[in-house]
């Protein structure tokens, strides 16, 4: 018999094994749900899959009488728009400040402590200030995402910039590069794939802030819906919405990974990190 640590499942087996805990969870849910519903048929806490499916189907197809909009899609587009804009702005700021901080010691000396402190402040706690500064519309929600995500991106990119081998900066200078040219042709292109990677890591946090922002004040959005129907304990809506958000998060993540592989082959097969 081989030692446990030396036993590797086959390819197909891995697939099945991976599915196993999901099946177990599903069965656990079903049995709990059945017990509760047997006791009280009106119980909303653990709805049956069919209830959830029909609620979700309803949300995904029925047009609102007043506006003619379909709830699920309105929510999805509103949320996606916010997260894409928010993360986009963060990425831009992160890239620029990260390059400047990482490449120019004098700027790093100025900004680094500020970024460190900023990254420690829980953005949720300073909401009122955000409202004053950015109003209560889309701007505030996007600002919350930006404030929540940018310090992480800056620190990550700054770290990567500092970890670029000195040899490359020296080499560029021996080829006659000015400071600006070093930033533009050595740091920028090498940090871009790392930005994509960092953005993928930051997406989770971005979703968090998006939902928090939508819980506070919104007229549509995935987080809005969850926090609105929460008062009716409509788990038949909340659970499919959570699954839907998870799926969207997964797809966004994969999209970024795919773009990165396509655009930066040297990064993924080279010495770049393997994550």
């Amino acid at each position: 018999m081989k030692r446990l640590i030396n036993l590797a499942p086959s390819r197909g087996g891995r697939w099945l094994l991976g599915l196993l805990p999901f099946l177990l969870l599903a069965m656990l849910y079903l049995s709990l749900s059945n017990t509760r519903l047997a006791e009280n048929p009106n119980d909303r806490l653990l709805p049956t899959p069919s209830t959830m499916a029909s609620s979700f189907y309803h949300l995904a197809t029925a047009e609102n009488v007043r506006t003619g909009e379909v709830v699920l899609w309105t929510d999805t587009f509103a949320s996606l728009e916010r997260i894409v804009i928010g993360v986009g702005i963060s990425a831009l700021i992160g890239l620029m400040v990260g390059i400047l901080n990482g490449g120019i010691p004098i700027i790093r000396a100025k900004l680094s402590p500020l970024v460190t402190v900023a990254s420690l402040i829980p953005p949720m706690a300073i909401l009122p200030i955000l409202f004053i500064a950015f109003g209560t519309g889309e701007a505030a929600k996007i600002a919350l995402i930006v404030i929540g995500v940018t310090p992480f991106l800056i620190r990550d990119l700054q770290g990567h910039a500092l970890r670029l081998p000195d040899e490359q900066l020296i080499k560029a200078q021996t080829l006659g590069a000015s400071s600006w040219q070093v930033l533009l042709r050595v740091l920028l292109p090498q940090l871009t794939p790392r930005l994509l990677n960092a953005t993928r890591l930051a997406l989770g946090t971005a979703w968090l802030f998006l939902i928090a922002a939508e819980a506070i004040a919104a007229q549509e959005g995935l987080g809005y819906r969850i926090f609105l129907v929460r008062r009716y304990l409509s788990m038949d809506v909340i659970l499919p919405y959570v699954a839907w958000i998870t799926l969207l998060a997964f797809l966004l993540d994969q999209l970024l990974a795919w773009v990165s592989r396509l655009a930066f082959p040297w990064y993924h097969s080279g010495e770049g990190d393997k994550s």
Partner: protein
Amino acid sequence: MSLLAAKRLEKHYGNHVVLENLNFSVEPGEFVTLVGASGCGKTTFLKMLLGTEATSRGSLTLDDQPIPNEPGPDRGVVFQKYSVFPHLTVLGNVMIADELHSAKLLAKSFGAAKRRAVEKARSRIDEVGLDHALSKYPHELSGGMQQRLAIAQALMMRPRILLLDEPFGALDPGIRQDMHVLINRLWQEQQLTIFMITHDLKEAFELGTRLWVFDKTRHDPQAPEAYGATITYDLPISRDRPSAELKEALNQGGMKTHSQETLL
């Protein structure tokens, strides 16, 4: 007037004396090879020539002027690792020197300028035998090809001085031989002044016209950092086998293991 000259040059890191009492003058066209035990300060010396490390005391002059305190296009460099840009293809790596020069703002050339840069880069790439790999990225190249690329890149700006820090240290013995031929040819064709660090004494003899051995002349076992290394041997090399006298000198000068190892 010599190209490079040092007088009582020293380098400290805090209390740690790395190099002391360096005196030399180097004429254009020399090929200086540097050997010495690990950690004795060879790379530090090269960095002072590059301008990335400041001198601590004494003088180091280039054309009788204090050496510039940062890297410039007159001094090319090839490191053992990380010498080429991973995000650029072979062509891009060689072209970039030209682009940095001709497009100050974007550092990227277009149209006719670009065609000219490509042309120029291709001839350099041909010289080092990478013409079949123009659009490959460094990670797709073997170690030897990467170092060839680094050399082609470093020579694009026609530097007067070429600094090599163990450029072939990571290569297989066979490939190393080819690189020797290449570097020798380029040195002669372009009339370069070359400083090359190596751990391989045989390589040092094969390529250089002048060999510097870095070693400590004083050593305090209680405070190993109190004294620095200096150039203990500064030997002209002819392309023949080292003379018996030289061997003798080396054997006594702490280079025993090196010589034993590679000179048999």
